[in-house]
């Protein structure tokens, strides 16, 4: 029984981080219908920013979110302007976005690999390997901090979406792009900002995984597959769905890891993905998707 609760706790501390990554991805899909295959490679950029900030200036990885987020936001704006401005309105938009972000992921991977080589890296602040003990349970300290900061960022994101004018505009565009345009929302500008936010969130998660999971440039393929399963499970474009998907899969993969073995933990994600496609292709909270 203690074991079961312990595994549940570990799953929850992972789930918070997954939720942040999935939020950025699902936001970008919800507003622009872009399936951002490059999301995890943006996380890798964030991870490298934190890594060098820590290595060179001893900046705490969680604090380095303050550096990586604005930088990634700007990068997101530029990329949106150059890559996606042109193709809005193309008849094969959905497919094009996937292929474009896929190419983008290759470019980022190649550039990171060229500059930083393919060796495994990780930042190691003092708390990375410590544990918090209470009663019979323990929690890895670094993971707790990461999850708490992730949840903090998610709360900020929700406050922004629910209370500001831009937030309203973003949600309106997510619900119905054409109607939002009719009532006077500048959807292009909103899309650009939302893309920037999505990438900034990716950067923030990157800063956190930098000290929890060793990374190298091509690592993003493993991450993106996991993230895509999360948002397909929750329903693509649904922010609440992303939270549900993140926690559900983080917890179930923790159990699989405990009962079956750590190597099979990631199988949980892909099996869940296939199951959900089989039973309910639009995900738990999703609307029906179109190509």
């Amino acid at each position, binding site marked *: 029984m203690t074991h079961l609760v312990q595994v549940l706790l570990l799953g929850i501390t992972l789930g918070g981080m997954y939720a942040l990554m999935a939020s950025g991805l699902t936001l970008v899909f919800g507003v622009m219908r872009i399936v951002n295959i490059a999301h995890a490679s943006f996380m890798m950029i964030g991870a490298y920013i934190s890594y060098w900030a820590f290595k060179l200036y001893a900046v705490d990885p969680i604090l380095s979110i303050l550096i990586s987020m604005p930088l990634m936001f700007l990068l997101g704006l530029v990329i949106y302007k150059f890559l996606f401005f042109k193709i809005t309105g193309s008849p094969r938009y*959905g497919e094009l976005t996937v292929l474009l972000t896929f190419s983008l992921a290759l470019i980022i991977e*190649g550039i990171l690999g060229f500059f930083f080589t393919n060796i495994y890296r990780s930042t190691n602040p003092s708390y990375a390997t410590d544990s918090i003990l209470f009663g019979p349970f323990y929690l890895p300290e670094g993971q707790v901090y990461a999850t708490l900061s992730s949840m903090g960022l998610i709360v900020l994101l929700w406050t922004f979406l629910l209370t500001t004018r831009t937030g309203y505009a973003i949600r309106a565009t997510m619900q119905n792009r054409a109607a939002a345009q009719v009532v006077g929302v500048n959807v292009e500008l909103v899309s650009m900002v939302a893309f920037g936010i999505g990438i900034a969130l990716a950067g923030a998660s990157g800063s956190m995984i930098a000290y929890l999971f060793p990374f190298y440039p091509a690592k993003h393929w493993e991450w993106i597959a996991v993230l895509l399963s999360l948002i397909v499970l929750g329903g693509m474009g649904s922010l609440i769905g992303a939270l549900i998907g993140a926690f559900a899969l983080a917890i179930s993969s923790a159990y699989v890891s405990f009962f079956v073995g750590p190597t099979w933990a990631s199988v949980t994600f892909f099996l869940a993905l296939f199951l959900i496609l089989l039973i309910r292709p639009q995900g738990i909270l999703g609307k029906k998707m179109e*190509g």
Partner: protein
Amino acid sequence: MSGNSISHETVYLGNTGAQKKPLFRAKNVFVIVLISTLFLFPLLQLFTGNINYWLHMLLYTFMYIAMASSWNMIGGYAGYVSLGHNAFFAIGGYFSASLLAYAGISPFLTAPVAGLVVMAFGFLVGLISLRTSGPAFIISTIAMVLLIKISFDNWDFIGGADGISLPLIQLHIKWVKIPFYYGMLLIAMGAVYISFRIRHSKFGLGLRAISQDETKAEVAGVPTSLYKILAFAISGLFVGMAGGLWGYYLTYLRPTIFLNIIVAAKLVLMSVLGGKDTVTGPVVGAIIFIAINECFRTYLGFTELNIVATGLLMVLVLLFFPQGIVGTLKELGKLPQILDWD
């Protein structure tokens, strides 16, 4: 390619070129000459110095022609972009490899069976993943690759993540590439031929209708689910066969060689570069891509920069030439007759 009489479907497609069909039209002659040249090419090994490099490049190109043409059946004709075709490649490779390692049967015999096994696998996966469309389908194909990768990494029977080594083929170094050369050539010819036949059949017409507007196609009586799943399965056939031979050629199989996402990216890029939804597009795309890549490797040598170049090329083609080389030329009316098999 021209032996068949005029079929009802070709007329229906409005393909006026197919109605006359003299055997010695320029483009038929071109194909016959091309194929005979390719068949005779290895004879040079007898007369000149070592041409192993060229044999290698050609058989590598044949392999990608076969795979890109196969990809085009589902990704081009039906418009269902798959980023998971390297799963087919890997399954084909490992199927033949384990038969060689454990039962001693040559992959040259088992490669066609590998193709059929992959086809069956594609059919089963298609039953699930083709329930979705657009982005969700692409995601499901990526998931398929990763699922296969994890399974292969942990499956001790086929060597797990360490891979499996195969015995070398017992031939003098001078001849060792030649069986693979002919094998890949036959696979490439088969793939292009099937691609051509599908393009000019009612099946192909149905696939293209699905690509245009799936709901309307369904209403018009196209059995969309069946067609999509069949196209997905058939597109696995030659990829599986190529995998079977390629594993033997490398004599060493590891999941990371086959299940590298770059392999899938190449197939997409080749087809898009050459022009998807055309018969010759993937062929042209494969040849040009491999040529560019080889120059790049010779002069720059960095594999990381190679990845960047692949990505950049893909972005440029997608943004500025979404029709690809063959498609764009055709639109301009400048496509040479020998490349026009649509």
